[in-house]
């Protein structure tokens, strides 16, 4: 027997549940993950696996401590922690110490998500907060030791502590940066597991677009970042493609900035959000000479309530009140 549900009409039943959306996001992240394994070797499986496992375990432990019965926990499990763990794992490099993904996932799930009320109540993207926590906690491990990939030596990892591709782009060393095609495919590029292969990320993004999990608006973020970098650099369009193809912009724009919970509710608000993201990212990138996408998304996530407060949507059928002059004209 089904339960009798009483609510206001009209009713449209759709199978678009949190669970389904989160599974879609996981599927969309798979190409980037696979390319990460191809480029950086099997250590990636360990790192991403540890991140996912500890994220799920952290959620279960928290709920068990909160005295929820196991049956309820299993029923409530909606794969959001899997997505968080996956994103966090893809945001680390393949050479980090084993305890980094565990600590980051535990921080992301327990502090950022569960303490603030669980799924849909997190004030910033948990995976981002986890990454930033790791970044400021283990700055030596996180900022150095980038692994460079090489298509000629698949799976072989060589460590570089020098400038990343993005750093070279921002300094204007055009002879040092790889070609745009290399940047797009991620061949021979230093970076995190999931961020180097833009083609795979784009594939995942298109999948999410087709499944209507996200819309086209993150493109604004990517384009504005590129354009604003061009503007800052004195309208030198050589900067456009390298600046959007290097660093973690695609990963951030497609998978992190689009988090439902930390996006503005209105259409205009969303435009403001993405444009500001792009402008601040480009500006800070040039100023600091490093990758700032995660920090900028973090800050803009915190600004979302502010945007929602000041961008008030027009109610359906709303008309502007007529001016007093016309009222008087009737008399």
């Amino acid at each position, binding site marked *: 027997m089904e339960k009798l549900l009483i609510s206001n009409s009209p009713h449209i039943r759709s199978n678009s549940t949190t669970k389904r959306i989160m599974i879609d996001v996981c599927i969309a992240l798979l190409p980037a993950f696979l390319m990460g394994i191809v480029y950086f070797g099997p250590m990636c499986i360990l790192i991403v696996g540890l991140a996912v496992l500890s994220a799920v375990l952290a959620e279960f432990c928290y709920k068990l401590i909160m005295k929820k019965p196991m049956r309820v926990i299993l029923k409530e499990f909606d794969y959001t922690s899997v997505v968080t763990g996956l994103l966090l794992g893809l945001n680390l490099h393949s050479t980090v110490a084993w305890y980094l993904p565990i*600590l980051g996932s535990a921080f992301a799930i327990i*502090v950022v998500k569960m303490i603030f009320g669980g799924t849909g109540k997190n004030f910033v993207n948990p995976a981002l907060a986890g990454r930033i*926590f790791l970044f*400021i*906690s*283990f700055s030596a491990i996180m900022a150095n030791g980038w692994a460079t990939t090489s298509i000629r030596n698949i799976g072989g990892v060589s460590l570089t502590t020098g400038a990343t591709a993005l750093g070279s782009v921002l300094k204007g060393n055009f002879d040092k940066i790889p070609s745009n095609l290399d940047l797009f495919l991620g061949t021979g590029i230093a970076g995190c597991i999931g961020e180097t292969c833009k083609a795979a990320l784009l594939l995942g993004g298109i999948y999410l677009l087709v499944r209507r999990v996200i819309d086209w608006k993150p493109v604004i973020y990517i384009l504005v970042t590129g354009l604003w970098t061009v503007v800052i650099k004195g309208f030198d369009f050589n900067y456009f493609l390298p600046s959007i193809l290097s660093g973690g912009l695609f990963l951030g724009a497609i998978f992190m900035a689009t988090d439902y919970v930390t996006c503005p509710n209105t259409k205009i608000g969303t435009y403001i959000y993405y444009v500001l993201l792009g402008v601040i990212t480009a500006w800070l990138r040039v100023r600091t000479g490093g990758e700032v996408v995660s920090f900028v998304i973090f800050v803009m996530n915190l600004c979302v309530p502010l945007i929602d407060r000041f961008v008030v949507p027009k109610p359906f059928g709303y008309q502007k009140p007529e001016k007093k002059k016309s009222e008087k004209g009737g008399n």
Partner: protein
Amino acid sequence: MKVKAKDLLLDGILRQNPVLKLVLGTCPTLALTTAAMNGVGMGLAVTFVLICSNVIISALRNIIPSKVRIPAYILIIATFVTILRMVLNKFLPSIATALGSYLPLIVVNCLILGRAEAFASKNPVLDSAVDGLGMGLGFMLSLTLMGAFREILGTGCIFGVELWSFKIEFFTHQAGALFTFAIFIAVFVGISNLISSMRAKKMIKEYSDKNNEVKEEIA
């Protein structure tokens, strides 16, 4: 109303802990808890100023006109802070440099001014001194504990002695200070709620036992 000295001490150290319960003096709490030693130094400094200013303010409580009481309190507190600074600069310069600008800022520490306003201006000299001691010790205890927590996690040391090389630098940053503060308040409130609920249960049990005895007697 006569309040026992033991109660006053316990109030300061545990029940009305200035940092975790009254949330006073948060500025030095957030800034100085990077190391356990800072907590001890700051705690002792505040305890000294608190006891002295409480005694003087309490002794002068009937003389100070209520309209100008805050400037008068500040004057008294500033006197002791100046003495303390001179003594520390002369004999313990390392602690003086570690506390930095937070030492002169004790003058406007709301913990000291708050106790002067809330307690010393209404109570006799001896009680005020005991209250100052309790509050100061409570301040020192919580600062030292928070400092130790942040020092162990952030630098892998305790009182400057290295325990291990593993460190989470997050806890040495300002964000870590706020995070640690929140955790400590949460744990403190959790424990105090647990104790009060246990006491309530005990009281209910005693009450019902007594009731049963009375019923048996009647029967």
